[in-house]
């Protein structure tokens, strides 16, 4: 799923303080799971902003709402007439949602209340870890199911660098060295010989945006 964390409150306040009618608009899918941008978080953020407005002596009408997804128009189209009544939408969706809503909303600005981070797993409740970089050219079959693009600080393709340190990364003891994990996994799978093959330089053109694709089957049917 897509993960994100709420921006520092002061940064959010500085975005909204000069507007008169603000909607904090949540998304109940990915960012709700990481407790950053679902309906509940939108409600809490709206009430914190109302308190701050009162403290600063500002008169701002601040409401909240949420839909299931901000990344497909059909999920928010039915509420757009109401959304357009505001002079600012503070979105707690991921960046995808902010972009798409901006395309559909007309002359109302949409600002981000969260920093969208990565495609993450939830190894334990409340903990999110980057496992995939969406590079467009998957090689997990070569690396024991452990992604060096996402999980090695240097996205190395041929083994650990000199910074590998007792199983940790030189960048932080909290980051596991992806290549030690890959080595152990390949050993477990009895595939160490495969790890000895040189992986050629990656085709990064597939990782660079703007990217889009169309489902081929649907295109055929349309024809």
């Amino acid at each position, binding site marked *: 799923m897509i993960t994100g964390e709420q921006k520092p409150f002061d940064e959010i306040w500085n975005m909204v303080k000069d507007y008169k009618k603000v909607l904090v608009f949540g998304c109940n899918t990915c960012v709700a799971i990481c407790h950053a941008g679902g309906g509940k978080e939108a409600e809490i953020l709206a009430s914190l902003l109302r308190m701050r407005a009162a403290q600063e002596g500002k008169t701002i009408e601040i409401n909240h709402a949420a839909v299931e997804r901000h990344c497909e128009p059909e999920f928010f189209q039915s509420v757009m007439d109401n959304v357009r009544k505001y002079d600012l939408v503070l979105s707690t969706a991921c960046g995808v949602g902010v972009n798409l809503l901006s395309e559909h909303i007309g002359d109302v600005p949409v600002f981000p209340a969260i920093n969208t981070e990565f495609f993450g797993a939830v190894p334990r409740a409340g903990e999110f870890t980057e496992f995939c970089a969406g590079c467009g050219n998957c090689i997990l079959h070569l690396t024991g199911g452990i992604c060096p693009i996402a999980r090695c*600080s*240097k*996205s*190395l*393709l*041929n*083994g*650990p*660098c*000199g*910074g*590998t*340190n*007792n*199983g940790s990364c*030189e*960048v*932080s003891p909290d980051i596991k060295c992806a*290549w*030690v994990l*890959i*080595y152990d996994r390949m050993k477990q799978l009895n595939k*160490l010989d495969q*790890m*000895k093959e*040189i992986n*050629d*330089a*990656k085709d*990064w053109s597939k990782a660079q945006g703007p990217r889009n694709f169309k489902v081929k089957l649907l295109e055929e049917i349309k024809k």
Partner: protein
Amino acid sequence: MSFKDILDSGKFAVTAEIGPPKGTDIKEMYHHIEVLKGKIDVANVTDNQSAVMRISSLAVCKIVLDNGMEPVLQMTCRDRNRIGLQADLLGASVLGIHNVLCLTGDHVNAGDHKQAKSVYDVESVQLLKIVEGMNNGKDMSGNDMKGGTNFYAGAVVTPEANPLEPQLVKFEKKVKAGAKFFQTQAIYDMEKFKSFMAYARKFPVKMLAGIVVLKSAGMANFMNKNVPGITVPQDLIDELKAAGKEKALETGINIAARHIKMLKDEKICDGVHIMAIGMEDKVPMIMEKAGLL
């Protein structure tokens, strides 16, 4: 004699680092070049070492060359993509720089521009392959170039990496990708290094042992705790401690000289790479004590 010829001749080679400074005042660097000239075989110029921004390795290699020493161009993959790396390789080649050390490069997190975007478009193994291709007149995309390069390519290895096995997998890939010489991370445990060499000798490459002078017991302890792949054995730390503060540096120099002498006399490896880290002035003394001058 070129670096390759020196190593091929069987002479015990000595390389030392020239660290480009941050800023345009290069008086001290010139002094280091003067001190090392005629003593060491080649000067190895670091590339934004520890991810700290400095004068480019390529520019300083040219200065080294113009001042009568053969340079090794250190090239990391952190700051340039494949286009920039190849362009600089061609640039080095036409300037007369023909030795290159291919490195992945310390993460920007270690340096003084922590917010920089790391590149790592390619990494050390792939860079070695790029060099090999350019030596054969082809760029990385397979395009013919008007005039190829003639690089003697090297790489690094950490004999005491923990765990060691994945490091050795990478070492073997570097050999396969065209590395002809290796310099190691600093080594202090001669017995361990001997057993590493028993393994490394199976490959057709020249090995230069990394030497970093211990300035104090504190420095040794610091490295043991903080520098991946470096282990200073307790007996050396005790030796430095026993020497006291006054004589610690002298003792560190003696240890380095002793190790170099042993590596040479017992023909354990093909040379040493001395990383003086601000003590370039002491390199000739170390070499003298090791019986190399």
